[in-house]
């Protein structure tokens, strides 16, 4: 699959593909990204209760949560110079802006579209709230907002990108855990970073969704994780559902042909 989703979508002359590299190894769990996103995009409040899930009271991405910081407390046994205690993992999750986007593929109205930056955005004035994108997303990112009945998700600050600015979350991140830029550059930087971490003894450090040959053609937003993806609530091997569409339509066609043939057989009878 082409690594140039904007070109595939028909943009003849377009800027380089832009994306996020979220390096969770330097996330401090400040949630500035969550706040900046809400503020800039005027995303409504969606609950102010306590979850009991460490410092995570945001719980997950949704129609009104476009950045979500996960907190994982892991008991660790004493090794070498490190004492026994808790390892605290923090990670800021976001829409992956997949190269092969299930939400965009299944949207029946064209409300979801590919921008010239290779990102995926919902048009508020077109979405009729059918909800198909919600079940199609392999990451559980996009959701329908009860107040307006429409689907919403991260736009990678399409408005800011158009003005040459970086997205609000990346701008607000105090540690540069959220890095924004041309995807090619981010991938190079991420490869160096994960090599450094592994050399320093972080055996579980791994890049997630950086590979253009994975099940979604690589993410426009990808991550450096310090444990397996499912620990952070991410699917370990996501595959875009529409990869199986040829097989799906084939079996639908065969089943429909079987039903039609039954009808013809009924029609060939004669009333006694």
């Amino acid at each position, binding site marked *: 699959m082409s690594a140039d989703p904007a070109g595939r979508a028909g943009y003849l002359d377009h800027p380089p593909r832009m994306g996020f590299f979220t390096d969770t190894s330097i996330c401090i769990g400040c949630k500035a990204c969550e706040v900046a996103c809400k503020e800039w995009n005027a995303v409504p409040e969606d609950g102010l209760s306590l979850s009991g899930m460490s410092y995570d009271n945001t719980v997950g991405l949704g129609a009104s949560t476009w950045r979500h910081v996960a907190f994982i407390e892991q008991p660790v046994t004493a090794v070498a110079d490190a004492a026994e205690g808790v390892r605290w993992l923090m990670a800021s999750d976001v829409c992956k802006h997949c190269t092969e986007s299930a939400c965009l593929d299944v949207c*029946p109205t064209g409300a979801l579209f590919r921008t010239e930056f290779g990102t995926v955005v919902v048009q508020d004035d077109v979405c009729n709230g059918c909800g198909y994108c919600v079940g199609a997303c392999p990451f559980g990112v996009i959701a329908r907002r009860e107040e307006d*009945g429409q689907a919403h998700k991260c736009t990678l600050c399409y408005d800011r990108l158009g003005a040459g600015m970086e997205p609000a979350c990346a701008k607000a991140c105090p540690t540069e855990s959220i890095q924004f830029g041309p995807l090619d550059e981010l991938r190079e930087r991420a490869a160096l970073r994960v090599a450094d971490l592994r050399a320093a003894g972080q055996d579980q450090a791994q890049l997630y969704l950086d590979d253009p040959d994975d099940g979604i053609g690589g993410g426009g937003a990808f991550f450096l994780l310090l444990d397996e993806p*499912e620990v952070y609530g991410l699917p370990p091997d996501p595959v875009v559902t529409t990869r199986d569409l040829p097989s799906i339509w084939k*079996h639908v066609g065969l089943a429909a042909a079987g039903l039609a043939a*039954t009808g013809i057989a009924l029609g060939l009878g004669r009333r006694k």
Partner: protein
Amino acid sequence: MTQVENGHPDRAPGRDGRRRRRRAEQLMVPDAEFTSYYGRPVIKEPAWGVPDVPGYLFLGGLAGASSVLAAGAELSGYGELARVAKVSALGAISLSAVALVHDLGRPERFVNMLRVFKPSSPMSVGSWLLSAYGPAAGAAAVSDLTGILPAAGKTATVGAALLGPAIATYTAALICDTAVPGWHEGHREMPYLFASSASCAAAGLGLLTLPTAAARPARTLATLGAPAELVAKRLLLRRLGDIAEPYETGRPGQLLRAAELLTVGGLAGAVLGRRNRAVSALAGASLLAASALTRFGVFEAGMATARDPKYTIIPQRRRRDHGE
């Protein structure tokens, strides 16, 4: 069920998070590798409501297969059955259109479905199919009932019969083309289950409403559709493997077991009650109910596989780590 956003019900109580975590840990027993984020689902349940969407799966099947039955009955000289089937097709497709529009978050924008045609979206394909099939089914029924424009009525009958099989089966593509493990992984079997379940519904309505002598093609359709449905469901469960669990347990399991009993009973009644109006009618009602229960069961089983992260994580780990 339409609540999809991470809103209050999911996040309100702290104890809910713990309860979910404990449940996930119990489920980890067969696979020690399985971990999740506080037992939270990885994917979101589709934002589809009950009874709108499972009701639509049933009604679309009833309509599509009824149009097939109508054409078959008309060609073989069973005019009463053809008329019943045409009217049932029109009624079912009208109700299903209402259910579909009602389920939209912005119902007044339903025409946006026809802004584009996208083969990658079964819902787009379905919207275009419906907008061709609906008028055909309507014209066929109205012409038959009123006797107006018989030639056009015949053309509409044939047209509806050609589109009917697509209407009855595309809904399998609709639910399987999602990240929901309990639907997607069954995409090779679901269309056959839906086609045979639709046949049972259409045949059931014919058996229920007409004297035995007038409903022969419906009886034939029932004797073909019911065994096919039973086989297709077995194959679906075998394909799903571990993910089949919600199809066999809990509420969806109950719905599907009831559906199976009604299908078997309906088949037996259709075959044995050939000359008995009461037995035939009961068999027809059983098949109709079985078809509805099957769709509600499949719908709810799939939703259950979306809610529990183990159905997403364990098969993906297996695929990634062992290339299965």
